[in-house]
Protein backbone atom coordinates (compact mmCIF):
# COMPACT_ATOMS: atom_id res chain seq x y z
CA UNK A 1 0.00 0.00 0.00
CA UNK A 2 1.45 3.37 -0.94
CA UNK A 3 2.60 5.74 1.78
CA UNK A 4 0.89 9.03 2.46
CA UNK A 5 1.72 11.28 -0.51
CA UNK A 6 2.74 14.06 1.86
CA UNK A 7 5.34 11.79 3.42
CA UNK A 8 7.02 10.97 0.13
CA UNK A 9 6.71 14.42 -1.42
CA UNK A 10 10.19 15.47 -0.24
CA UNK A 11 11.66 12.30 -1.77
CA UNK A 12 10.01 13.11 -5.07
CA UNK A 13 11.19 16.69 -4.86
CA UNK A 14 14.76 15.58 -4.21
CA UNK A 15 14.68 13.76 -7.55
CA UNK A 16 13.11 16.53 -9.59
CA UNK A 17 15.51 19.09 -8.09
CA UNK A 18 18.39 17.17 -9.62
CA UNK A 19 16.68 17.19 -12.99
CA UNK A 20 15.05 13.75 -13.07
CA UNK A 21 11.75 13.47 -14.87
CA UNK A 22 9.11 11.67 -12.83
CA UNK A 23 7.22 8.91 -14.61
CA UNK A 24 4.02 8.26 -12.70
CA UNK A 25 2.08 5.94 -14.99
CA UNK A 26 2.77 3.00 -17.25
CA UNK A 27 1.96 5.16 -20.25
CA UNK A 28 4.54 7.74 -19.18
CA UNK A 29 7.11 4.97 -18.79
CA UNK A 30 6.37 3.60 -22.24
CA UNK A 31 6.58 7.06 -23.75
CA UNK A 32 9.95 7.73 -22.10
CA UNK A 33 11.65 4.34 -22.40
CA UNK A 34 9.74 2.52 -25.13
CA UNK A 35 11.50 3.87 -28.19
CA UNK A 36 14.36 5.43 -26.32
CA UNK A 37 17.48 6.25 -28.32
CA UNK A 38 20.72 7.28 -26.76
CA UNK A 39 21.52 7.05 -23.07
CA UNK A 40 19.16 7.04 -20.13
CA UNK A 41 19.33 6.57 -16.38
CA UNK A 42 16.27 5.18 -14.62
CA UNK A 43 16.22 5.68 -10.85
CA UNK A 44 13.80 3.43 -8.97
CA UNK A 45 13.01 5.54 -5.93
CA UNK A 46 12.05 4.09 -2.57
CA UNK A 47 10.93 5.26 0.84
CA UNK A 48 13.54 3.08 2.52
CA UNK A 49 15.85 5.39 4.40
CA UNK A 50 18.46 2.66 4.82
CA UNK A 51 19.29 2.66 1.12
CA UNK A 52 17.35 5.35 -0.71
CA UNK A 53 18.49 7.94 1.81
CA UNK A 54 21.97 7.45 0.40
CA UNK A 55 21.04 6.63 -3.19
CA UNK A 56 19.36 9.97 -3.93
CA UNK A 57 22.28 12.13 -2.75
CA UNK A 58 24.63 9.75 -4.54
CA UNK A 59 22.81 10.31 -7.80
CA UNK A 60 22.81 14.03 -7.23
CA UNK A 61 26.59 13.91 -6.84
CA UNK A 62 27.05 11.64 -9.86
CA UNK A 63 25.04 14.01 -12.03
CA UNK A 64 27.78 16.59 -11.56
CA UNK A 65 30.16 14.31 -13.49
CA UNK A 66 31.47 15.39 -16.89
CA UNK A 67 29.92 12.42 -18.71
CA UNK A 68 26.19 12.05 -18.19
CA UNK A 69 23.21 10.15 -19.54
CA UNK A 70 21.12 12.14 -21.98
CA UNK A 71 17.95 11.46 -20.03
CA UNK A 72 17.34 10.92 -16.32
CA UNK A 73 13.96 9.58 -15.28
CA UNK A 74 12.54 8.16 -12.06
CA UNK A 75 9.74 5.89 -10.96
CA UNK A 76 8.69 5.48 -7.34
CA UNK A 77 8.45 1.87 -6.18
CA UNK A 78 5.65 1.26 -3.70
CA UNK A 79 4.03 4.55 -4.70
CA UNK A 80 3.45 4.69 -8.43
CA UNK A 81 2.84 0.97 -8.71
CA UNK A 82 1.98 0.73 -12.40
CA UNK A 83 4.86 2.93 -13.44
CA UNK A 84 7.39 0.97 -11.38
CA UNK A 85 6.07 -2.36 -12.65
CA UNK A 86 6.23 -1.19 -16.24
CA UNK A 87 9.73 0.22 -15.87
CA UNK A 88 10.90 -3.13 -14.49
CA UNK A 89 9.64 -4.82 -17.63
CA UNK A 90 12.36 -2.95 -19.49
CA UNK A 91 15.05 -4.26 -17.14
CA UNK A 92 15.17 -7.75 -18.65
CA UNK A 93 16.85 -10.35 -16.44
CA UNK A 94 17.46 -7.90 -13.60
CA UNK A 95 15.21 -8.63 -10.67
CA UNK A 96 13.22 -5.87 -8.97
CA UNK A 97 14.80 -4.05 -6.09
CA UNK A 98 14.41 -0.59 -4.72
CA UNK A 99 16.14 1.69 -4.69
CA UNK A 100 17.98 0.69 -7.82
CA UNK A 101 19.49 2.40 -10.83
CA UNK A 102 19.45 1.20 -14.42
CA UNK A 103 21.61 2.62 -17.17
CA UNK A 104 20.15 2.10 -20.63
CA UNK A 105 21.54 2.64 -24.07
CA UNK A 106 19.02 2.54 -26.92
CA UNK A 107 16.55 0.93 -24.54
CA UNK A 108 18.83 -1.91 -23.42
CA UNK A 109 20.17 -2.19 -19.88
CA UNK A 110 23.94 -1.85 -19.95
CA UNK A 111 24.52 -1.50 -16.22
CA UNK A 112 22.41 -2.07 -13.14
CA UNK A 113 22.94 -0.97 -9.56
CA UNK A 114 20.92 -3.08 -7.16
CA UNK A 115 19.81 -2.14 -3.70
CA UNK A 116 22.47 -4.40 -2.20
CA UNK A 117 25.14 -2.35 -3.99
CA UNK A 118 23.79 0.78 -2.29
CA UNK A 119 23.08 -0.39 1.26
CA UNK A 120 25.51 0.73 3.91
CA UNK A 121 27.63 2.79 1.53
CA UNK A 122 28.19 6.52 1.67
CA UNK A 123 26.82 8.62 -1.19
CA UNK A 124 30.33 9.56 -2.36
CA UNK A 125 31.26 5.92 -2.93
CA UNK A 126 28.04 5.14 -4.77
CA UNK A 127 28.47 8.30 -6.86
CA UNK A 128 32.02 7.35 -7.79
CA UNK A 129 30.83 3.98 -9.06
CA UNK A 130 28.07 5.65 -11.04
CA UNK A 131 30.48 8.15 -12.57
CA UNK A 132 32.75 5.30 -13.62
CA UNK A 133 29.76 3.60 -15.22
CA UNK A 134 28.85 6.83 -17.05
CA UNK A 135 32.39 6.97 -18.42
CA UNK A 136 32.33 3.31 -19.42
CA UNK A 137 28.91 3.17 -21.03
CA UNK A 138 28.15 6.75 -22.05
CA UNK A 139 31.63 8.12 -22.74
CA UNK A 140 32.63 9.57 -26.09
CA UNK A 141 34.48 6.43 -27.13
CA UNK A 142 31.38 4.26 -26.74
Amino acid at each position, binding site marked *: MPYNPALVAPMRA*EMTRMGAKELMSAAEVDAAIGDQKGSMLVFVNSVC*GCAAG*NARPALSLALKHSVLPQHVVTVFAGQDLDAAARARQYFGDY*QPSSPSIALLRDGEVVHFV*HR*HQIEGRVPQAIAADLAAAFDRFFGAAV
Partner: protein
Amino acid sequence: MSGHVFHPGHAELHGITVVLETNGPLTYVGRYDSEDEHGVHMLDVGVHDAAAGDGSKDEYVRKSAKFGIRSNHKHLVVPAAVVAKITRLGSMA
Protein backbone atom coordinates in the same frame (compact mmCIF):
# COMPACT_ATOMS: atom_id res chain seq x y z
CA MET B 1 14.96 13.40 3.35
CA SER B 2 18.55 12.47 2.62
CA GLY B 3 19.77 10.00 5.17
CA HIS B 4 16.40 9.81 6.85
CA VAL B 5 15.74 6.40 8.38
CA PHE B 6 12.16 5.31 8.98
CA HIS B 7 13.02 2.47 11.28
CA PRO B 8 15.68 3.40 13.82
CA GLY B 9 16.54 1.16 16.74
CA HIS B 10 16.87 -2.04 14.74
CA ALA B 11 19.75 -4.48 14.44
CA GLU B 12 22.85 -3.46 12.53
CA LEU B 13 21.87 -5.63 9.56
CA HIS B 14 18.24 -4.48 9.49
CA GLY B 15 17.32 -3.65 5.91
CA ILE B 16 20.54 -5.06 4.51
CA THR B 17 20.54 -7.74 1.82
CA VAL B 18 22.41 -10.75 3.12
CA VAL B 19 23.44 -14.26 2.26
CA LEU B 20 22.44 -16.56 5.10
CA GLU B 21 24.24 -19.89 4.95
CA THR B 22 22.92 -22.75 7.04
CA ASN B 23 24.44 -25.92 8.41
CA GLY B 24 22.40 -27.83 5.86
CA PRO B 25 21.84 -27.63 2.10
CA LEU B 26 19.78 -24.42 2.18
CA THR B 27 21.14 -20.94 1.55
CA TYR B 28 18.92 -17.89 1.77
CA VAL B 29 19.44 -14.54 0.08
CA GLY B 30 17.24 -11.65 1.12
CA ARG B 31 16.81 -8.65 3.37
CA TYR B 32 17.68 -9.18 7.00
CA ASP B 33 14.89 -7.81 9.13
CA SER B 34 15.37 -8.91 12.72
CA GLU B 35 16.13 -11.78 15.03
CA ASP B 36 14.01 -13.09 17.88
CA GLU B 37 13.31 -16.33 19.73
CA HIS B 38 11.99 -17.86 16.50
CA GLY B 39 15.14 -17.15 14.51
CA VAL B 40 16.27 -14.72 11.84
CA HIS B 41 13.46 -12.95 10.04
CA MET B 42 14.17 -12.23 6.39
CA LEU B 43 12.13 -10.45 3.73
CA ASP B 44 11.88 -10.95 -0.04
CA VAL B 45 13.93 -14.11 0.11
CA GLY B 46 15.33 -16.44 -2.52
CA VAL B 47 16.35 -19.94 -1.52
CA HIS B 48 19.04 -22.21 -2.91
CA ASP B 49 18.79 -25.91 -2.13
CA ALA B 50 22.03 -27.72 -2.83
CA ALA B 51 20.22 -31.02 -2.33
CA ALA B 52 17.71 -30.28 -5.07
CA GLY B 53 20.12 -30.03 -7.96
CA ASP B 54 19.88 -26.25 -8.09
CA GLY B 55 23.50 -25.91 -9.19
CA SER B 56 26.25 -24.65 -6.98
CA LYS B 57 25.63 -22.31 -4.08
CA ASP B 58 28.45 -20.04 -5.25
CA GLU B 59 26.88 -19.67 -8.68
CA TYR B 60 23.50 -18.90 -7.11
CA VAL B 61 25.05 -16.19 -4.95
CA ARG B 62 27.01 -14.80 -7.90
CA LYS B 63 23.86 -14.59 -10.03
CA SER B 64 21.95 -12.99 -7.16
CA ALA B 65 24.68 -10.37 -6.83
CA LYS B 66 24.64 -9.60 -10.55
CA PHE B 67 20.96 -9.88 -11.44
CA GLY B 68 19.26 -9.47 -8.09
CA ILE B 69 17.24 -11.86 -5.99
CA ARG B 70 14.57 -14.02 -7.53
CA SER B 71 12.40 -13.81 -4.45
CA ASN B 72 9.93 -16.57 -3.69
CA HIS B 73 9.24 -15.85 -0.02
CA LYS B 74 7.93 -12.49 1.17
CA HIS B 75 8.79 -13.31 4.80
CA LEU B 76 10.74 -16.25 6.08
CA VAL B 77 12.13 -17.21 9.49
CA VAL B 78 15.33 -19.21 9.65
CA PRO B 79 15.78 -20.99 13.01
CA ALA B 80 18.82 -19.62 14.79
CA ALA B 81 20.11 -23.15 15.41
CA VAL B 82 20.73 -23.76 11.69
CA VAL B 83 22.38 -20.42 10.91
CA ALA B 84 26.04 -20.92 10.05
CA LYS B 85 27.05 -17.58 8.56
CA ILE B 86 25.50 -14.27 7.51
CA THR B 87 27.30 -12.12 4.95
CA ARG B 88 26.29 -8.93 3.20
CA LEU B 89 25.50 -9.70 -0.44
CA GLY B 90 27.05 -6.35 -1.36
CA SER B 91 30.39 -7.54 -0.06
CA MET B 92 30.25 -10.56 -2.34
CA ALA B 93 29.42 -8.66 -5.52
